[in-house]
């Protein structure tokens, strides 16, 4: 199945993209997305356990993803 992955700020800079699609096996979890992105060029700049969101809400790395989901890997926030 295909999921959409969003990267921001320093993470997007490190990997050189802010949006990508990944093909994952059924039953994959949000944490699998992080592993895949960390295997990409520049991906080691991301920590092993970053903040994660699934469909615009914070999620744990063990949350199961579904076809068409949007997974975001979120760098340290700095609003205000």
């Amino acid at each position, binding site marked *: 199945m295909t999921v959409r992955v969003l990267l921001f700020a320093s993470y997007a800079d490190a990997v050189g993209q802010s949006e990508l699609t990944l093909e994952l096996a059924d039953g994959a979890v949000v944490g699998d997305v992080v592993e895949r992105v960390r295997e990409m060029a520049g991906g080691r*700049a991301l920590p092993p356990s970053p903040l994660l*969101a699934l469909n615009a*809400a914070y999620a744990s790395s063990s949350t199961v993803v579904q076809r068409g989901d949007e997974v975001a890997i979120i760098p*340290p*926030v*700095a*609003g*205000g």
Partner: protein
Amino acid sequence: MSAARLVTSPIDVAALTKEVAGDDRGAVTLFLGTVRNSNEGRPVDGIDYSAYEAMAIAEMNRIVDEARERFAGVAIALEHRIGALGVGDVSVAIACAHAHRSPALDANRYIIEELKKRVPIFKREHYLDGTSEWVAQTGGREEVPS
């Protein structure tokens, strides 16, 4: 119009305040976050704010809902600006109103503290020496290979 918004143009603080004011509300509190001219001793020229926009709006509205539950009867409006801001520009404005001052003050404090912890907004600081860096909320910086 939802109570929490992301905007790209200067925040109209007077309009935001008016949005929550009312004849039965004897207290209006306004918090403004502005771009400071230095960070950890380094002179700052400006800040580029960016966001995971859909989630930032959703998360700010979740925080507003929480504040309304904790501080019953409080009226809330908040805007966070993204884009390129200069020193002194208002990056965030939070207006709270209530019949009495305590809930209005407490709600405002609650919202800014939660916003800083949770809302996916990112900032890249530009320094007077021409360099720039992504900055984390704690004041720590992330080193990113260029």
